[in-house]
């Protein structure tokens, strides 16, 4: 039976090349006749559409999943109880003891409202971010989430991105939705990985990236998603890279999907806003990416 598969491109460390891998993978599979949809779940810094050369916006909506406390100045007696109990340090007493909500810190838990003796506090729904769907020049769609600056609820927004992505992908009878995740291991990453079919973890051959791959692997394992690893920007140290591959397969128990050598053509591709595989299919990074994409196609 036909079923949409979700592949998440993730990385414990930032800047390892998630978006380069996701964009090239999408274009490669689309050219092979796979019906592709894409989703940018890096809601802080959504760059997937940039890597794909932009797109025509089909629709855009505001997501209002956040909540913030509001103090009614006319009712507030400046007793200071709200500032005392706020677990997030979001209520600060100004000169004269009148409390002010620092929206950036407020998680909307409403504890302040519970202790306020003069009923001066309301918890109101506010913007979390925006969500938009674009049609790319490669014929497939891309859903992008953009978190409001400094917001907390990235997991909620990522869940919305995935829901819309899944819906749109199903409407288009897509075979696969490629999700570009945020760096790290926190809430937006967990929200990206949970219930996905496969994770491609992108790493670099450095001790810092290795350590963060190990942390990401614990999250992937916890949520029981099969995974493979891509080593990007390889070629500095053969010994380190050989040991890293061995560790990925034997210690982490993940598939090794391939390595992409350092190649400044990748920078050119980013600058021209075309996936490297499209701009220059014969360069060494493109060949490596094609081999990886083929492997991922087979796994699916």
């Amino acid at each position, binding site marked *: 039976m036909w079923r949409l598969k979700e592949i998440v491109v993730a990385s414990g460390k930032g800047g390892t090349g998630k978006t380069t891998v996701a964009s090239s993978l999408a274009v490669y599979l689309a050219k092979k006749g796979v019906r592709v949809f894409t989703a940018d779940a890096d809601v802080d810094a959504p760059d997937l559409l940039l890597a794909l050369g932009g797109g025509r916006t089909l629709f855009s909506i505001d997501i209002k999943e956040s909540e913030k406390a509001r103090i009614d100045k006319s009712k507030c007696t400046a007793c200071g109880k709200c500032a005392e109990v706020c677990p997030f340090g979001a209520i600060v007493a100004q000169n004269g003891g009148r409390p002010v909500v620092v929206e950036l810190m407020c998680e909307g838990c409403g504890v302040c409202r519970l202790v306020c003796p003069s009923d001066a506090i309301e918890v109101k729904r506010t913007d979390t971010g925006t969500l938009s769907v674009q049609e790319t020049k490669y014929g497939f769609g891309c859903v992008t989430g953009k978190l409001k600056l*400094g917001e907390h609820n990235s997991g909620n927004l990522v869940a919305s991105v995935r829901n819309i992505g899944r819906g749109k992908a199903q409407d288009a009878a897509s075979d696969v939705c490629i999700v570009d995740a945020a*760096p790290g*291991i926190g809430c937006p990453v967990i929200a990206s990985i949970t219930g996905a079919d496969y994770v491609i973890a992108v790493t670099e051959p*450095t001790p810092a990236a290795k350590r963060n791959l190990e942390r990401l692997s614990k999250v992937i394992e916890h949520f029981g998603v099969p995974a493979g690893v891509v080593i990007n920007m390889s070629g500095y140290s053969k010994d380190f890279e050989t040991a890293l591959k061995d560790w990925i397969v034997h210690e982490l128990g993940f598939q090794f999907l391939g390595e992409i050598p350092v190649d400044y053509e990748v920078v050119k591709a980013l600058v021209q806003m075309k996936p490297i595989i499209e701009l220059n299919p014969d360069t060494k990074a493109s060949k490596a990416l094609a081999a990886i994409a083929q492997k991922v196609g087979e796994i699916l």
Partner: protein
Amino acid sequence: MRALRKKKVEVPIVAVTGGKGGTGKTTVAVNLAAGLSAKGLKVMLVDTDVDGPCCATLLGVKLENGDAVKTFKPKINEKRCVGCKKCVDVCHEHALVGLQGKTPRLFEELCSGCKACQLVCEYGAVEEGWKTIGKIYTAETNGLRLVTGELEPTEPRSPVMARATVLRAMSELQNSGYDAAIVDTAPGVHNAVAQPLWVSDFALAVTEPTPLGAHDLKFILDLARELELPAEIVLNKADVPGGLKDELLSISRERGVGIAAEIPLDGELLRSYISGEPLVKNSPNSPAAKALLSLIQHVHKRVKGGET
């Protein structure tokens, strides 16, 4: 906005941030801290990238015996609970689930630790439980104090962990004679980045000359502006072949945000990254080290000149 910030310490705090991942935030932070320390300043380096902390690795420091960061979670005393469901209704995160007349069940991973449930329970049935969301490690290396926050894998609350790391650093910075603190942030513009920026006096936004670097730089500069935090740009990998340096220079001009340093590509930088020793110590004559040394000089002036 800045007026609301109750800063308890006088020590200048410099945030190293940047929007996009992998632009070189940690490299800049580590070299800056090591360089200022070598100039005789008493420096604390704080790693608030609790998802992907790298400062210790880049300094070749092994972290041991961290202090657990615990947040509240409700422990429901079944004998006292009458099943009134008030705690369930008040829970903002929907972490408590239950039916009228039944003891509610806690979905621990959703709980934010806000204690609203405890406040509304009239029967004293919500007792204090704790869960560990991460650890804070400290270390001394070559006269440099390192404070690192690490989120426990599978825990989602990076902002809470980042805030705990900031608070721990601030408490150590009080009355202990520090000249400066360098705070490395996570990539992005979410709350775990905003937490350290909130307490900082000055920010360096590290970026790279690609459309992605430029795109994300604008976001982090927007966030700094919203926080009324003075910022400057560090242009890393400045001479990468085919790069978009001009676009970054025009962002700098348009926004009136200065360029604090331009760091060229340098194979030595990579070697130092892998070897676990800051470049400014490891090979101070390499092109990137020279750019970093002038950045150190620049920040030294700001920190000592009281301009922050």
